[in-house]
């Protein structure tokens, strides 16, 4: 089958590890993909040094956006938020194990990064800044 729907992605979609919310959270942000109505919220707990101690995502969307969120949160636990600000589109594609993605589905894959950066900066990120 298709690269896009490999076991790994389907597994993170069907059985996400980081799905849920954190109440209270230190940082929280939500946004959506207007093309398909996917909606994502990310909650983070951060210690005094700026390291991520816990993370959760909630919302709804396609397998790509949901798996991307789960994989992204898995990868950021223990990392410093200053390092997270440097994450790029390529980092997300690496996590998903995908080399190329069409422009429409790329937005699905990058929604989690957009929301994560929104939570770090407190504002929405334009796609071209990612």
């Amino acid at each position, binding site marked *: 089958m*298709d690269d896009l729907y490999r076991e790994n992605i389907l597994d993170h979609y069907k059985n996400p590890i980081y799905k849920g919310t954190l109440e209270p959270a230190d940082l929280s942000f939500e946004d959506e993909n207007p093309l*398909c*109505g996917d909606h994502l919220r990310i909650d983070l707990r951060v210690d005094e040094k700026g390291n991520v101690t816990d993370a959760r995502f909630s919302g709804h969307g396609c397998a790509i956006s949901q798996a991307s969120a789960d994989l992204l949160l898995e990868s950021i636990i223990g990392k410093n938020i200053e390092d997270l600000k440097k994450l790029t589109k390529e980092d997300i594609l690496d996590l998903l194990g995908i080399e190329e993605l069409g422009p429409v589905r790329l937005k699905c894959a990058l929604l989690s990064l957009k929301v994560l950066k929104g939570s770090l900066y407190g504002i929405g990120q334009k796609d071209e800044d990612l």
Partner: protein
Amino acid sequence: MDEKQIIQDFPIFSQLDRNGKTLCYLDSAATTQKPLSVLEAMDTYYKTYNANIHRGVYHISELATEAHETTREKVRAWIHARSTTEIIFTRNTTESINLVAYSWGRKNLNAGDHIILTEMEHHSNLVPWQILAEEKGVELDFIPITDAGELDLEVYRQLLEKHPKLVCATGMSNVMGTIPPSKEMISAAHAAGALFLLDGAQMVPHMQVNIRDLDADFFAFSAHKMLGPTGIGVLYGKESLLEAMPPFLGGGDMIKRVHLRSFSANDLPYKFEAGTPAIAEAIGFGAAIDYLAQIGMDAVFEHESEITRYAIHELMKIPGLKIIGPLTSSNRGSAVSFTLDYVHPHDVAQILDRENICVRAGHHCAMPLHERCNVDASTRASFYIYNSLTDVDRLIDGLKIVHQLFGQD
């Protein structure tokens, strides 16, 4: 209908994808494929008589003008309008509706006036009225959708008691395929003193339309959903209304005389056609009408009904699949939208794409309708003259692959 001949008339269907599969195109509600005759008509114009229209006194400009205006006459005859003065070329349905909102709406509507819309409108028949409502303080009322995907006409009758100035509704839902009883709704609007704008984007490509019989005051549709090119659409308006409306866009062609500080507007329909129009597209549009005329719209509707009936029957066998809209197969259009409870429409469309099957995934420019149905997005298959029952079989086989990947069994 000669299915084999029709397929051969569309060059795109002779192409194979990288896996050797033919194109299974199920997104005609978004835009249709184009037959060779349409492409050749446009090509011939550019190659042999390309010139601007309405001004040149030289031969090829006259030829171009004649070809452009011949399409206007074909459109008039196609929808049975009284006169070509009532046929205005625009870019598309969206621009046609905006023209009415900006020109007629700004002149005739005031704070507190009511416009009736429906919950099943395409964004193109919602947002222009929202903009107008914001600017002028006009109130928008909505005819709700019943659980069966029909308009609630009882509520419509109640809303008409508020004496609205205008009713705007689709003649066929682009999501659910619902065909509201337009003629009855138009006559009820007139009885209440309201004008009626009918969105014909999904209607004109699929069924016979007699606008004089329907008696709509404004009627909008696009060429590209009926085998023609993108970039050209139509606004029909009753002549007396169009005469009284101020121009929409200003510029060349829409004027009779221009002074430094004033102008006088051209006669209908040119008054609403500023600037060089889509000439090649008008010529291609004419060829598209000829193509459909040769098949006959009753045959088109019957062909689509047969496929839609089969599609609904087969789709309903799939576990977890829910069709949005009417399940009846009579008196409905060929757009069939559905959800699968275990997978997002984007993933469905992506997996079908691997099989070279094109469906639409998302909200199909009808977010309020999806909100009403409590779904974020849906997958839509829509059928046209070049589709066959085999396309439905390919869709169902594709959905079985989706089930293998995403099904929770």
